[in-house]
């Protein structure tokens, strides 16, 4: 009824290529935009905003990894490393040269992209599990380098404190202020990726994922496009690193370990590989899961368990849920949360006349 495609006529090429061809989609996006612009910052408490902020940062990183893994079919277990490259590049620029955020963020992204290209070179020769190990190696090489080169890490503590970002002289410090800052970049990442995937480059990525030999035969320069994929994906990872740095007020490579790389892979698997919306769902889901488990158990677990048991149960249950969900989605719904969402949407396409 409200998701009806009848009566939508396209009379120009521009209309045909629009990102949101249906009126209902345009209204929905407007509604979501209003929700995030007004309702969330006004209604949510500082603590909930902190959670939302972490989701927004994760969204950028998850979309970046999705471009590489979901769209181009190249696996990477080194994205934590690219994040620390972005983080330290920006932190050094901010502290040493006083660079503003609108330069520091792209600079961090570009440096990560450069490293990403270097790491991506083996992908021209190797695939699958072999590429996974090659990217894993990059994770360790980057961490080692930052740990040992004090010129990069700013001292043996390997932590660089950065001042909060300032926009027109306003310092962004509270969760509310940072919320708008991070929302801007998350939206930018979403819109940019949606458009990228409809472009020549995006089509080439998908062709390489589906069958790289076929893609080469129809004239796609595999060499170039695989490196593009690594560069773009690492750029997003670098930006994620800078956003973390601004958000936490500190660049520290220990927070971008291998577990972070795995977490991001889990996000796009649970969200659904090869879709921007899936990456967003996955980022939100994985970030909120531990917090939701804890709140649920501390409020309602008292019925079944003693307080001591809950304390040990909560952290371990989160891990069990995390692993269980990945297995569940891999087996039952390989297309992830995004597929669940599409099922709901398709149901309403014909509703209430679904026959």
């Amino acid at each position, binding site marked *: 009824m409200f998701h009806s495609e009848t009566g939508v006529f396209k009379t120009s090429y521009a209309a045909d290529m629009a990102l949101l061809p249906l009126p209902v989609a345009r209204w929905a996006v407007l509604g979501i935009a209003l929700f995030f612009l007004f309702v969330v910052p006004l209604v949510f408490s500082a603590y909930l905003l902190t959670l939302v902020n972490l989701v927004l940062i994760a969204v950028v990183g998850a979309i970046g990894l999705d471009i590489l893994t979901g769209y181009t079919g190249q696996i990477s277990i080194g994205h934590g490393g690219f994040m620390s490259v972005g983080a330290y590049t920006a932190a050094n620029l901010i502290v040493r040269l006083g660079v503003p955020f609108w330069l520091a963020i792209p600079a961090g992204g570009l440096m990560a992209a450069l490293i990403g290209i270097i790491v991506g070179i083996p992908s021209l020769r190797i695939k699958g599990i072999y590429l996974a190990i090659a990217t894993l190696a990059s994770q360790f090489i980057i961490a080692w380098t930052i*740990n040992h080169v004090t010129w990069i890490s700013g001292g043996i503590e390997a932590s660089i404190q950065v001042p909060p970002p300032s926009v027109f002289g306003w310092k962004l*410090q509270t969760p509310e202020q940072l919320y708008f800052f991070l929302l801007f970049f998350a939206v930018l990442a979403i819109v940019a990726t949606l458009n990228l995937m409809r472009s020549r480059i995006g089509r080439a990525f998908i062709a390489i994922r589906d069958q790289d030999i076929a893609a080469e035969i129809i004239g796609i320069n595999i060499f170039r496009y695989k490196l593009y994929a690594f560069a773009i994906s690492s750029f997003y990872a670098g930006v994620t690193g800078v956003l973390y740095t601004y958000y936490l007020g500190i660049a520290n490579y220990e927070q971008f370990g291998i577990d972070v790389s795995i977490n991001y892979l889990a996000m796009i698997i649970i969200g659904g590989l090869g879709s921007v919306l899936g990456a967003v769902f996955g980022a939100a889901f994985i970030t909120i899961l531990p917090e939701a488990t804890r709140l649920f158990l501390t409020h309602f677990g008292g019925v079944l368990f003693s307080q001591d048991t809950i*304390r040990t149960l909560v952290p371990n249950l989160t891990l069990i849920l995390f692993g269980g969900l990945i297995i569940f989605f891999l087996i039952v719904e390989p297309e992830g949360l995004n597929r669940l969402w599409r099922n709901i949407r398709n149901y309403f396409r014909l509703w209430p006349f679904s026959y």
Partner: protein
Amino acid sequence: MAIAFAGLAQAEDKTILIGMQCDRTGPTQVVGTMLCPGTHDYIDLINSQGGVDGWKIDASEVDTAYQVPPAVEEYEHAKQQGAVGIMIYGTPQTEALNQRLEQDKMPGTSPGFGIAASGDGQYYPYLFPIAANYWSQGAAAVKFAKDQLGGSLKGKKIAYIFYDNPAGHEPMPVIEELSKVEGFQLQTFAVPPPGVDVSSQVLAIAQEYRPDFVIDHTFGKSPALIIKGLKQNGYPLTHVVALVWASGEADIMGAGGWSVAQGYNTMQFAGAGEDYPVIKEIQAMYKKEGKEPPAAMKSTVYYNRGVQQGALWVAAIKNALTLTHGQKPTPTDVKKGFEMIHDFTLGGLNAPLTITADDHEGGGWVKIFRVKDEGFVPETQWFRAYRDLIVDREHKTAQQMAKAN
């Protein structure tokens, strides 16, 4: 439901909340699973005795799995719920929360890890290491080696084996500086993360370098492997001193038990063993409730550190309540409460800890316990070493940090 909520609201009236970060999962879970029950047990003990001047203490725990984002999340949550401060766990977490603590005027503790320079209370007004930092530990290790080797280190050889991460690097400049002061030769051996293989480092120490003393600053699985390796290579464990995170029961067990680790010297900032009045009180509390004391209690090193952490917070809140005349203290009151802690020994479990507005480290005291028979036996009294040098370094580093920001 309504009754439950009413009950909650009533209980909250006379409750002081502390945010508590733990690490029951993740890379250092061996510490968290032992330390956190200690803190809870001490706070339960105080609550069972009627609380602090009628106020109940509530430590709301969150597992961060040694990651930074959950630590920030939990901090904001605790702040929103009206916590008077936060127990931090982990060096990167401390670094990340430092700015927020200052901005929100919220005291935070980082016992035995964190930013070494934060002992300087003038530049780090809201961060409380409340135990010997890595610099003090490094200096104390050198002093201990000196005493064990007959009062002089001139011409002696010392090996420093460390976990190759920022925390592992931290004591190094102090030990290097002391090598010049005391005239000993220093060689460093890095154990790269995740630290599950130390064989080449151990061989290099025991067979090639053959030092007069070994300072071990490793974490996780490495300390046990180092004990075992040095023993197998015939190096005397009486000439090894471990800094505070390589000094737990778990490390001894991992090496093959007490019999293997005889003579191994461990550095502690809270006393090891069960022979303290406060531990007896906790045992009595469990007995009264008809329950067995928790298994974590057997791991006295980390458990006692947990008790110490709980006790210092309770002491700070008690002091804060004298400032507010029994009214609910603000985070700033608790900060002042910490700075009023004076000669706080907790029946010998603690060093004579004195925290002032200048010195948030509390003096930098440690005590060496040696493995003997089936337990840890005190080898020294509470002591500290090269205090001027450490304080000077804290001031200089803090000033540099202040200038950079």
